């Protein structure tokens, strides 16, 4: 009995050791589902990593269809690597730190673009664009095309989407109609006070204004079009200042006034008592009947989009001018990773994404017939009876979205509207400038912590205005003035180099 036990144990141990050795030494095939990859005369293979928010089970099918076209046109195949938002930061950092196969990657100034450039993780694109990406230039305004330059070089290609932003409120249409609220009279943020009064009086269990998300409180949206955040909001310029003097956002008079307005709303009960800590998204609160509406940056078709989320028909009212700010270009781009072994093929494929409607439709919407069907009116919708499809992507992250079909529920000429909207925006004098935080990174870390402590409370109206003074003082202690000085210096250098001053 004891002998057998011992034999079993030793066998187990041996098996485990052998397996460990095998797993360690031999190279397991770790593919992402690439088909027909061959070296030599075969088509070149590029790997593209990008952000997704859901599980895309039919990714292989879509990839195959895309490859049929790209194989023929440019002799390049793509291996799509969708990465969950949950894993994005981690996996991208790791991918770019090593030497795994990666050619094209989605990048964003909101997600570390400047850091990636300063760490040498992205490839310079100017020459590649000249030779293999010639068509891209013509798809977007020149200012946007050049809006991603760092130290004069392009490292990312903006996707075609809404470049301009205006800000306002989206709210439940049925209640607007019920109480005869005349939205044409609502022109400024302060005008909303009357609207909130009506709602509050008639719907006691509903907060007229809810936060869009815990970190996106009302004032954030109200102050956004007034200043250009210059990459990180630590030191901003006012949109109407051609001299481009960098100032502390939190010391501006406009900021104080907006805080007072929202504080007033909060005290009147127009916002939720736990506005600063609730984890619910504004859309969910409206869906559950606890909220009337919320602020956001709008675009053509925004209300229709939100109606799907809130299950009520929504109507939007714009309260500011449309603006195009320095990060408008760089909020979503495609870059080429330094891991790449074939930048030429990568650029060729990117060019395809800006010119080929079929490829873009496959990428953005899926396979016709399986994931969507084209109706008589030219708009597309889910196939009959299908609620969940195996493919879902978006129409703003990658490539030239103006080439793609329009979904039922949007205006048929939505892309035209968007083009016009983009053109109408007031352009910031600093469009194209990106701030490199590395000289002041210690101060940035300290300042970010201070902001984290006060921003949400102040901008939701839950903290009294006295806290603003304390906030400003602590910012100074943390070194914000040093950041502002550095930013002014970089901005001046950039302006001089680009003939803006």
């Amino acid at each position, binding site marked *: 009995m*004891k002998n057998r*036990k*011992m034999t079993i*144990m*030793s066998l187990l*141990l041996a098996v*485990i050791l052998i397996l460990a050795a095998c*797993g*360690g030494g*031999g*190279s*397991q095939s*770790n*593919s*992402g*589902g690439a088909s027909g990859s061959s070296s030599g005369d075969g088509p070149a293979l590029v790997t593209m990593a990008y952000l997704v*928010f*859901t*599980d895309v*089970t039919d990714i292989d099918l879509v990839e195959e269809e895309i490859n049929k076209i790209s194989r023929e046109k440019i002799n390049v195949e793509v291996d799509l690597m969708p*990465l*969950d*938002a*949950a*894993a994005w930061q*981690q*996996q991208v*950092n*790791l991918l770019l*730190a*090593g030497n*795994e196969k990666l050619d094209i990657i989605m990048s*964003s100034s*909101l997600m570390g673009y400047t850091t990636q450039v300063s760490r040498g993780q992205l490839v310079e694109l100017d020459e590649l664009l000249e030779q293999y990406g010639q068509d891209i230039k013509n798809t977007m305004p020149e200012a946007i095309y050049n809006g991603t330059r760092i130290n004069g070089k392009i490292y990312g290609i903006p996707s075609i989407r809404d470049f301009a932003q205006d800000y306002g409120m989206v709210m439940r249409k049925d209640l607007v109609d019920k109480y005869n609220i005349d939205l044409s009279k609502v022109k400024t943020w302060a005008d909303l006070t009357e609207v909130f009064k009506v709602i509050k009086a008639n719907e006691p*269990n509903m907060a007229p204004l809810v936060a*869009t*998300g*815990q*970190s*996106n409180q009302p004032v954030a949206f109200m102050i956004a079009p007034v200043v250009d955040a210059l990459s990180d909001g630590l030191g901003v310029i006012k949109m109407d200042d051609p001299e481009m003097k960098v100032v502390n956002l939190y010391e501006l008079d406009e900021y104080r006034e907006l805080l007072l307005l929202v504080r007033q709303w909060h005290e009147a009960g127009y916002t939720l008592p736990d506005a600063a800590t609730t*984890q*619910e*998204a504004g*859309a*969910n*609160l409206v*869906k*559950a*009947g*606890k909220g009337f509406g919320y602020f*956001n*940056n709008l675009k053509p078709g925004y209300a229709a*989009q*939100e109606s*799907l*989320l809130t299950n009520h028909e929504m109507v939007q009212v714009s309260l500011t001018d449309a603006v195009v700010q320095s990060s408008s270009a760089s*909020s979503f781009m495609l870059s080429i990773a330094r891991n790449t072994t074939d930048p030429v093929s990568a650029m060729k494929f990117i060019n395809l994404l800006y010119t080929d409607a079929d490829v873009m439709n496959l990428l953005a919407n899926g396979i016709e017939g399986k994931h969507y069907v084209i109706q008589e009116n030219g708009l597309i919708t889910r196939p009959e009876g299908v609620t*969940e499809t195996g493919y879902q992507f*978006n129409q*703003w992250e990658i490539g030239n979205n103006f080439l793609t079909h329009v979904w039922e529920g949007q205006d048929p000429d939505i892309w035209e509207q968007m083009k016009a909207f983009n053109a109408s925006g007031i352009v910031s004098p600093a469009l194209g400038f990106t701030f490199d935080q590395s000289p002041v990174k210690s101060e940035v870390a300290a300042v970010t912590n201070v902001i984290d402590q006060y921003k949400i409370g102040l901008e939701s109206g839950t903290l009294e205005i006295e806290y603003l003074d304390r906030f400003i003082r602590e910012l100074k202690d943390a070194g914000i003035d040093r950041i502002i000085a550095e930013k002014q210096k970089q901005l001046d250098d950039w302006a001089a180099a680009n003939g803006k001053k």
Partner: protein
Amino acid sequence: MKTNQMNQFAINVFFILASIACIFPFLLMFVASFTSEQSIINEGYTLFPSEFSLDAYRYLWDNVSSIGRSYGITILITAIGTTAGLLISSLLAYPLSRVDLPLHGLLSFFVFFTMLFNGGLVPTYLIYTEVFHIKNTLWALIVPSLLTNGFYILLIRTFFRTSIPKEVIESAYMDGASEFRIFFSFVMPLSLPILATIGLMLGIGYWNDWFNGLVYVSDSKLFSLQNLLNRMLQNIQFLQQNTLGSKAMSSASIPTNAVRMAMAVIGIVPILLIYPFFQKFFVKGLTIGAVKG
């Protein structure tokens, strides 16, 4: 060790109160998974919600194939990982527990040092993916956590030192047994309590692990249960709490609070079912009486 009635009563009362404190939140969670979203947002979590609903489970049922598959992956890696980890840890702990072994102190330090100083995720990742190529394989879910902790090794070592009587080992030596024989036939059976403990901890660790999956696996066929659930959850939080999110809302159907609770429930229930099985091992070692006699 007989105690009188009063003491027993007091002890039981204490534990009943403690149990309520532990069960109550779990019940809240459980009930919340069967509550309608509307009710949760308006009333918060309560044991008696105004509206019941199976929506959360229906949503999960729609994803049943990926959830089922992830269950399978989790069970597999937990079984393999726990067994292998336990074996390797004990094999490492035993020599360390023998004070007659030269350099045992130094080796203990060698183990302990790893608990505090870590090269960090990036170098570890580089080693595992570029030298050993385990990305997107099952190994990626097992190996990085195998000896998660010098903690367990040192615990086992302490147990070996204090609870294995020296007489057992000495009498075995005199009978001419080899070290391996002593280890497998005497030391291990006497160590059931600590092995069960560490086995449980390793098991729970593997069961709940979502980090390895997040970092090393992008192939959705290899998602473990917690990895899958965590991704679903974080995708939603990302959308809700990020300025990116305010642009991205349209492309996700957001699962609700109830789903969050339902996910937690299906993650925990299997552990609760297995745990009683482990408790059987919390009895004293088998042969201790034999030695004395």
